[in-house]
Each structure stands twice: as structure tokens, then as C-alpha cells.
């Protein structure tokens, strides 16, 4: 294992494995885009590319919060329900004006995240179970708000709120810009602040982080609050885009978010991961869906088969590369 005993060749292999592990998804994304560009004439059209970016943005916002949570060694299963709840609250709030449409879902979704964090950090319960419970809770709250899903809140066509989802700047959708801003802020938060360092430290070795005097509980509570808030933001954007609060969205979104985070190179064991990787993971997922749609003759159900297979391939490769590096 020591550097002295390793021959230069195996050292180089280990370095290559490291690069592949970190950048593999990006390489696949670039190759995939190039292939799609040549194979499908419609793929490279500005319309399609704009659509690709817009479709990616909703999941990207959720996955951003999930990246923080997973780097800390946790998991947040409640984001899908929280996302749907946020959308319904935004559409409901829109009748009282733009401010309510934004603040109401943000407040409720952050609160759910905060309670998740509080339970996880203060009682030592497993994140998996706590957020599983809040998945049920948020979905229940959503159903209660919409009288068992029967009521759909429509946003008035003239509402300024709609600009958030349907507006464009230089032809590109507003959600795309917002997503990029959030990712830039997220990157700064993760890489340039004490909070970000604590997240990595907790994910790497929680006991040591505690012994080092890091504010473990406070950081965890903030993390889950952040994840809840971002799910709320995604809900707001989706409601503005669809012009209504749709009760049936968000089922399984937590798993999509986890998949793209993992595909992006963040380790589920915690302690390592990048924001950019998550963005790459989201784009790859949208690319796969887009390509399957372009093929047209292919059963659209293959989307999930390919997504599942792709997730698996990425994880297996990550695992094998990790092994070859430690050898």
C-alpha cells in the first residue's frame, strides 16, 4: 500500500482510477452528448437543448440538498413528498400574491426539514427512518390540504408568480438560471465555509468531528433544513411552470435524487462528494430520457430500466476503482 513499494505503473493506474472515479460521469456525459448530437438531428436543436436544461433544473435543485445530506453520511427520503407539498402550497399561496406563494412553501418545507434534523441530531435515530416517517407525514399533509388529492390549486394566468417557472431570459428558462445560482451558492457553502468543512468532517468520521469540537448537531439540523427548503424551492418552480399544484408528482423523486447524487460521484458512505458531480448526474439522467424519447420506437418504460442499469454500472465501477486504488 505504501508509495515506496508500489511500482510507477501501479501508481499511475491508481491515479487513473482516481480520476475515473471522480470524473467518470462527466466523461460519459460528454461522450453521450456527442453521440446523441450525431445520431439524432433534433437533439442539437436549440429548442431541445433548452428543454433539456429546463427539465433538469427541478430535480437538480432537490439533488443539491441531497448532496449535502449524503456527504454528511445521512439520507433524506422525505424530499419527494416535500417537493409535491411545496408545489401545492405555492399554487395555493399564489392567490394571495407572489410573496405568499414563495414564503409559505419555503417555511413549511424548511420546518419539515428542521424537524428531521432535530430528530436525527438530538435522538440519534437513523436518518433513513426519520425521513421515511416524514415522507409519509408530508404526503399525508398534502392529501389533507387537497381533500385527498381531489382539489387542484390553479394559478391565475395573470399571476406574476408564473414568471418563476415559465419566464425566459435570453430564451432560456428562469428555473435554469435559478438552479445555476443555487449550485454556485451551494458550491461556495460546501467548499469555502466552516459549515461545509463540518459537513465533510461529519461524513468522514462523526466521532472525530465531535471530539474536534465541531457543532455536529447544529450542522446536521441545518443540513436537513437546507434539504427541506430546496425541495420546497423545486416545488415552487414546478408549480409556477405547470401553473398548478400537482398532487401526484414527487413519488419516487427521493430515489431519483439519490441516484443522480451517487452517479455524480458522491459516496453514500459520506465524507466525499462534489456539487458539480451532482449537476453532471442530473444532466446524464435527463440525457438518457431524452435519447430514449428521440428513439421514438422504443417503449418509454425502458427509461427506468436504463436509469436503473446505469446507476448500477456506475456504482459497480466506482466500487471496483475504489478497490484497485486501495490495493
Amino acid at each position, binding site marked *: 500500500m505504501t508509495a515506496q513499494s508500489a511500482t510507477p505503473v501501479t501508481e499511475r493506474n491508481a491515479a487513473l482510477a482516481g480520476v475515473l472515479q471522480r470524473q467518470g460521469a462527466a466523461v460519459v456525459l460528454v461522450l453521450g452528448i456527442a453521440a446523441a448530437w450525431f445520431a439524432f438531428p433534433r437533439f442539437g436543436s436549440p429548442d431541445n437543448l433548452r428543454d433539456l436544461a429546463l427539465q433538469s433544473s427541478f430535480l437538480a435543485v432537490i439533488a443539491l440538498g441531497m448532496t449535502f445530506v449524503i456527504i454528511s453520511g445521512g439520507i433524506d427520503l422525505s424530499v419527494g413528498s416535500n417537493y409535491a407539498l411545496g408545489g401545492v402550497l405555492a399554487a395555493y399561496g399564489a392567490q394571495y400574491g407572489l410573496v405568499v406563494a414563495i414564503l409559505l412553501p419555503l417555511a413549511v418545507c424548511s420546518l419539515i426539514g428542521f424537524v428531521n434534523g432535530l430528530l436525527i441530531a438530538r435522538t440519534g435515530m*437513523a436518518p433513513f427512518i426519520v425521513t421515511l416517517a416524514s415522507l409519509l407525514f408530508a404526503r399525508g399533509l398534502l392529501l389533507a390540504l387537497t381533500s385527498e388529492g381531489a382539489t387542484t390549486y390553479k394559478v391565475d394566468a395573470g399571476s406574476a408568480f408564473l414568471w418563476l417557472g415559465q419566464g425566459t431570459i435570453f430564451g432560456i428558462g428562469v428555473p435554469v438560471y435559478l438552479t445555476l445560482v443555487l449550485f454556485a451558492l451551494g458550491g461556495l457553502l460546501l467548499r469555502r465555509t466552516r459549515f461545509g468543512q463540518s459537513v465533510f468532517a461529519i461524513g468522514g468520521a462523526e466521532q472525530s468531528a465531535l471530539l474536534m469540537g465541531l457543532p455536529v448537531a447544529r450542522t446536521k439540523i441545518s443540513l436537513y433544513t437546507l434539504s427541506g427548503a430546496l425541495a420546497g424551492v423545486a416545488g415552487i418552480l414546478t408549480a409556477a411552470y405547470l401553473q398548478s399544484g400537482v398532487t401526484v408528482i414527487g413519488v419516487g423523486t427521493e430515489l431519483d435524487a439519490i441516484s443522480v447524487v451517487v452517479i455524480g460521484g458522491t459516496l453514500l458512505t459520506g465524507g466525499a462528494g462534489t456539487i458539480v458531480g451532482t449537476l453532471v448526474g442530473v444532466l446524464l439522467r435527463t440525457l438518457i430520457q431524452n435519447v430514449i424519447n428521440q428513439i421514438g420506437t422504443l417503449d418509454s418504460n425502458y427509461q427506468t430500466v436504463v436509469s436503473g442499469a446505469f446507476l448500477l454500472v456506475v456504482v459497480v465501477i466506482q466500487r471496483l476503482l475504489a478497490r484497485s486504488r486501495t490495493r
Partner: protein
Amino acid sequence: MSTATLERAKVTAWLQDYGVYLAVVVLLLFNVVFTENFLSAANFRTQLVQAAPVCIVALGMALVIGTEGIDLSVGSVMSIAAALIPLYLGAGSLTAIVVAVLAGIVSGLFSGYLVAYLGIQPIIATLALLVGGRGLALVIAHGQLVQLHNRDFLELGTGDVLGVPIMVIVAAVLAVLAGLVVQRTTFGRHLVAVGGNRAASTLAGLPVKRVLVGVYVISGALAAVAGVLATSRLAASDPNDLGLLMELSAITAVVVGGTPLSGGRVRVLGTVFGALLMQLVHATLIKHNLPDSTAQMVQAAIIVVAVYVARERSSR
């Protein structure tokens, strides 16, 4: 330790061991007194039949959780089993059932191999099958719901023997088998050891990898059985909706039943009662005209309370 904290620890330990049974009894008594038409054979039948598929899936899940794993793929495995049924019913219902269960076993082998031999975390290994499995089921079924008319096959979900629904008998037999496996077999002892301390089990020369593959195979097979039974009861193969969120229901039943997520302990009877409890909670709320939404929120609260109580043992 002061007397007060000692008392509290005793109460907690008692609740951990018997809480789920107590909760089922209390809820039954509540319903007998306050719910109209609760004390009827027809109602008990309905409750048991509705709890049966969750119970069967939860038994497999309990074994997996006993090894400190988790199986998120169970719902998708159910849908694969459902999708295969109409394709093979022409060759007889036994053939269809065997094919469906084999598909469950193959799914389990797949997850187990990833977990045991490639060292991939259970949550991710089974997440891939959760995502891809339902897609596969939909591809097999061309996304269609198929009505079933084969009498033999429908008998499974609707028929009974000596007044007891066949579904309930199957669930009960499987629960007894699971109990025997955990308590009386080498495999069961190995399973608990692997969940308690995997490194030590490896050093002690236990067949860790084979045990891990084994539990995922059992879980896959049981999920397929639940898929077959649910399909028969519905009289339709519905790969779109069958087993959706089943992983969550099964995990809840296991955890509420007192099996810790940290592995090393499997409570089979607790799991059965966990499934019954969740069914009873749901039925109680519905019968008192509380909507589904409230039922979900109450379930969420129960999960948190159950895990909060269970947590104290592991931290002691």
C-alpha cells in the same frame, strides 16, 4: 443509577420487547368498544387478508435487516411477478406461480451478489432494482393492466380452507417457517451473527457471503409470493401500481415489530404483529371516518415513536 432511571430503563426494555403486542391488543380493545360492526368474522377476515401481503414481504425484509441490510426492491419484484403471471397462465396456474417466484429468486440473487461479492451498499444495490425493476415489469407487460379469469389462480386470493382465507394461511405458514429458520437453523444463527458483527463473523470463518446472498434470495422470493397473491386477489395483473411503496410498509412493519435497523437481531413474531398493527391503525382511522391523509400522518408518528423506544437499547 438512581431508582427512577432504573425504573425507566426497565419500562423501556419492556416496551421494546412487548410494545407492539400491547399496541395491537389496545387497538383491538378500542375497536371492539368504539367501532361499530368490528366484532364480525367478515371484518377480521378483511383485516387479515389485507395485512397478508405486507406481512409476507416484511418477513423477508426482517431477515435482510437482521444482516444490517435493507431491500428496497421488494415492490418492484412484486410488479415483475405480477407482469409474468398472465404470460404463463396459459400453461397452468402452477407454472405461472413457479415462474413468478423464480423471477423473485433471480432478483434476490442479483441483489445478494452485488451486496455480498461486490461490496455495494444494500440501499444502492437494491435501489437500482427498485428503479429498473418496475420498468422491466412494464416492458414485459407493455405497460398494460391485464384482467385475469383463470379460476384456479383466482382461488388463491379469494378462496379459503375451513373458513380461513388461503392468503392468511400462506402468510401464517411462511411466518412459522421464518421463525424456525431464525431460531433453529445454522443459517439463522449465522444471519444474526453476520448482522451483529460482520468482521468478527468473517474472522470466525462463517460463510458470510453465502448468508448475505441467502437473505436477499429469501426476500426476493417472498416479495414474488406476495406479488402473486395480490395479483390473484385483484383478479388483474397491474405492474403499474402493484407494490408501490411496499418497501416502506415492509420496513415499517419490521421496525415497529422491534427488529433494530442496526442488525444482529430478528423478531419474526414482532414483524407479523408490526404488519397487523399498521393494518389495524389504518382500518381504525378509516372506520372512524378519518381520511387517508390522517392515517398516513398517524403512521408516521408511530414509526418515530417505535424507533425512539427501540433506540434506547442500542445506546445503552
